[in-house]
């Protein structure tokens, strides 16, 4: 019987299991001495940092805070506060100069100007998807720009401009991961990945960016369950109460407008219902949605899984290597 209770977990038991897995994976299997965690001040990285600290001890966890030009000040403040709360070492690595050097911002600007030639100093932007609940729309991303006075408008980028904007923005996740591996190599640590099940399953990550890691301790947990774990682990209320954001574009952007079609609680339940063959009408009755709205979300889940196949794919070999 489908209900909101299907995602309920015994948080203490789940935390114990993950902590044991982290010890086995990092120390025994990977033979590394500790863990590096990129901390964004968000719920997922906060839970992963806390689990690593509990599994390995505070002296074997390094928290990295990696702001860039478009990061919210809250991300750095909350990340630092959590690292101090956990008693782990933390380092701030401003990745803006690296991104500048790679042309991330200039390439973003060039891409945006394919649709908004006047875009420049003082303007801000974000990408968003149409709401699946409002009607049967294709998941085609549009760009929202705000001029220096704050006036917003939405435009559709040409395909090449859209792809360039995404590609340039992906430098952010990839540079951060490069920095995590610098510290991991320096300390003989492993790099922790922070995706939850929703992100991992639906491909909400950058390949070789935040998708890269040596271990991913919460990739099997729905976001709702990550929140339950956060409460059990004593993650500060300000982090638990913060709306999930991408913290990637200069305009504030929620995860559901960028990628997921519903707020995470409902999205989690829809994913569970989809995977357990719950009829759209039955799922809709629990979620307060019409059956056709749930059907749309189901189709979107499948479409995102098709896209995620490439993101998950390991490098392909053309023959046997013999070494196993």
């Amino acid at each position, binding site marked *: 019987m489908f209900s909101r209770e299907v995602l309920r977990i015994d948080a203490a038991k789940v935390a114990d299991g993950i902590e044991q897995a982290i010890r086995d994976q990092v120390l025994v299997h990977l033979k590394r001495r500790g863990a590096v965690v990129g901390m964004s001040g968000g719920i997922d990285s906060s839970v992963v940092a806390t689990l690593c600290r509990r599994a390995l001890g505070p002296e074997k966890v390094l928290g990295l805070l990696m702001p860039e030009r478009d990061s919210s000040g809250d991300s750095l403040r909350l990340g630092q506060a959590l690292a101090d709360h956990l008693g782990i070492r933390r380092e701030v690595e401003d990745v803006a100069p690296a991104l500048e050097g790679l042309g991330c911002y200039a390439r973003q600007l060039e891409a945006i100007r394919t649709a908004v030639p006047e875009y420049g100093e003082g303007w801000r932007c974000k990408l968003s998807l*149409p709401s699946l609940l409002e*009607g*049967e*729309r*294709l*998941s*085609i*991303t*549009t760009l929202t720009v705000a001029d220096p006075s704050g006036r917003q408008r*939405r435009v*559709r*980028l*040409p*395909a090449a401009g*859209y*792809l360039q904007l995404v590609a340039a923005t992906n430098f952010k996740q990839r540079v951060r991961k490069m920095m995590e591996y610098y510290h991991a190599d320096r300390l003989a640590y492993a790099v922790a990945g922070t995706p939850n099940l929703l992100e991992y399953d639906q491909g909400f990550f950058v390949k070789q960016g935040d998708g890269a890691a040596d271990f991913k301790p919460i990739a099997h947990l729905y976001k709702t369950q990550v929140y339950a774990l956060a409460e059990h682990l004593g993650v500060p209320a300000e982090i638990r109460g913060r709306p999930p954001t991408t913290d990637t574009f200069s305009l504030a952007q929620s995860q559901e407008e960028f990628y997921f079609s519903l707020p995470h609680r409902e999205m989690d339940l829809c994913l569970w219902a989809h995977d357990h063959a719950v009829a759209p009408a039955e799922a809709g009755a629990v979620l307060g949605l019409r059956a056709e709205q749930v059907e749309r979300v189901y*189709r979107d889940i*499948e*479409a995102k899984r*098709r*896209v995620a196949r490439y993101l998950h794919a390991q490098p392909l070999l053309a023959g046997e290597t013999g070494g196993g």
Partner: protein
Amino acid sequence: MQVQERVKRFIVENFYVADPEELTADTSLLTGGYVDSTGMLEVVQFLEEEYRLEVADQEMVPANLETIARIAAFVARKAGAPPGA
């Protein structure tokens, strides 16, 4: 060239279609795995440039764009001509 033929050629030339014979006028481009949402942005841009029309955001719906037949009918409606023209 008929709209259906032209659209099919665009898809076959720009996306991976193992066997063009399998891509019929009624094949779903999205659920069939031929075109993803970014690819659909390219299809829309192609239609706008090839047929000198503007596709509004609210027109980007499966009823207009899910199959080659629907795309052709949509182009025909936008051009004010009968389907298949």
